């Protein structure tokens, strides 16, 4: 507290560097030529040559891939927020047995691992011709609703019903009460819900690989998988590609790290 804790500080910094080392090695080697990586992976590159980046960027068709990821993530997260908050509101303002059963069903669904429903899911959505972007967004709602409803429900139970009643007397209908009065009060938990779902959907590989595995629709993880398969013996390109794929996440983390860490710990502890 008053004393400087040098041994702990040094240990912490050492571990910090150790934790960063994979990223350091990735970046350092992404500037090397194939021959340089073959010779030595530890020393600094001979020069900061962006050739690998230019080639990897083009191979990944990165702008398009990035926008594909943004589109699917943003639309899915918005839909999850809108419908989960509404559902949680209905469940918190109706204390019947029906609400208890529905709430329990959503919570229980969290226990089901993806692999257990994966095969019939793909078959069913194949039959109704929804193995496309609309289909995957709908699936993200189905998989994301449980935790989101759970989180919203916890906050909503703490908002007094007198708020609703006052608005009812003023003549507002259900939708108006929810969207104009209640939803704005849910802002902190909405941030958490948005962060948790964004991280998960942005990084998801398995579902896109089953649902939108088509030329031109690939998200970053999906494209990365094919790219890496092709360039597995060409580490200089593979590493540049990996670095490119990570940059958007690091930028987002830089701007919102407080909210992100807070959101994750809230989601985990509950």
């Amino acid at each position: 507290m008053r004393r400087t804790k040098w041994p702990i500080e040094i240990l912490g910094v050492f571990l910090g560097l150790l934790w960063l080392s994979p990223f350091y090695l990735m970046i350092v080697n992404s500037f090397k030529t194939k021959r340089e990586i073959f010779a030595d992976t530890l020393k600094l590159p001979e020069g900061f040559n962006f050739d690998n980046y230019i080639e990897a960027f083009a191979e990944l068709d990165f702008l398009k891939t990035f926008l594909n990821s943004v589109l699917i993530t943003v639309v899915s997260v918005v839909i999850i927020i809108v419908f989960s908050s509404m559902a949680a509101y209905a469940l918190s303002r109706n204390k019947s047995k029906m609400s208890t059963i529905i709430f329990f069903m959503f919570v229980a669904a969290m226990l089901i691992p993806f692999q257990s429903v994966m095969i019939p899911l793909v078959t069913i959505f194949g039959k109704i011709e929804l193995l496309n972007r609309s289909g995957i967004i709908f699936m993200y709602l189905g998989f994301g609703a449980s935790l989101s409803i759970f989180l919203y429900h916890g906050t909503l139970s703490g908002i007094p019903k007198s708020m609703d009643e006052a608005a009812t007397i003023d003549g507002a209908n259900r939708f108006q009460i929810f969207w104009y009065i209640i939803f704005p009060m849910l802002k902190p938990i909405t941030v958490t819900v948005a962060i948790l779902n964004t991280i998960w959907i942005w990084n998801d590989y398995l579902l896109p690989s089953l649902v939108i595995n088509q030329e031109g629709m690939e998200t970053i993880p999906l494209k990365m998988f094919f790219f890496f398969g092709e360039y597995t013996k060409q580490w200089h390109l593979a590493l540049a590609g990996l670095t490119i794929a990570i940059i958007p996440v690091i930028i987002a983390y830089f701007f919102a790290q407080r909210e992100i860490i807070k959101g994750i710990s809230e989601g985990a502890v509950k």
Partner: protein
Amino acid sequence: MMRTKDLSYWLFLAPVLLALSMVVIIPLLFGVYYSFTNWNGIDVGGFIGFENYLNVFKDKEFLDSLWFTIKFSVVSIILINFFGLALALIVTSKIRTNKFLRTIFFMPNLIGGLILGFIWQFIFIKVFAGVGQVFGIESLEGWLSTTQTGFWGLVILMSWQMAGYIMVIYIAYLEGVPTELIEAAEIDGANPFQRLRFIIFPLVAPAFTVSMFLTLSNTFKLYDQNLSLTAGGPYNSTQMVAMQIFKTAFGQSEMAYAQAKAVIFFLIVAAISLTQVYINKKREVEM
């Protein structure tokens, strides 16, 4: 108040109920049904009772993957929690770099498992081999080409990734430990080890349960990192259950058989989660 017979109640619930039914409930029910048939993805074929299940228990590849998953989970849980708690203790002791270190330790969790696996593939295969050659350490060469190095590769990757996540949970509990208590113990002459053992650990005990189960459910269901780091190799010896199910279904097209494995997987995961719920409830009662 919203009444159950109100239209608005159902309108508010309709979208998520539809999505949950179509994406989770119906596939689960169909899946259980299919697992008792000859289903090949298109035709149901005949009803064959427990035949698929009986075959699963004779399937060496599946049993090996299950055993590998269990071993991997046990070792990972211990290491992740050890590092998670250690990192949490470091960043909550009043050091100057604590904010910066938290950011760094947590960072791997934001990046997809697939990408992390590829990065570590480079480190294990190229960097380890390079260091091994320079310093003449033979055990650093040929990583990921044997079952052992594949196992430890996955353990290292997951410990590195998840320690920062678990750290965040321990921090939440550690910050709830009253400083007066620690200072009082300090004045009474308790050394740092004693303070840890007799004051901090008992107070953060609930964090252990939460963290253990979070780690367990993450390691047990692991797929992306497994795929990108070892792809199950060499010779399927580092293949985990999630990957084995995927392979049976989409690699070998044995849909009904894969679904039987998926149902068993569900039962194991559900049993783990319910144990956690039970322990949490029990603890709440005691408190």
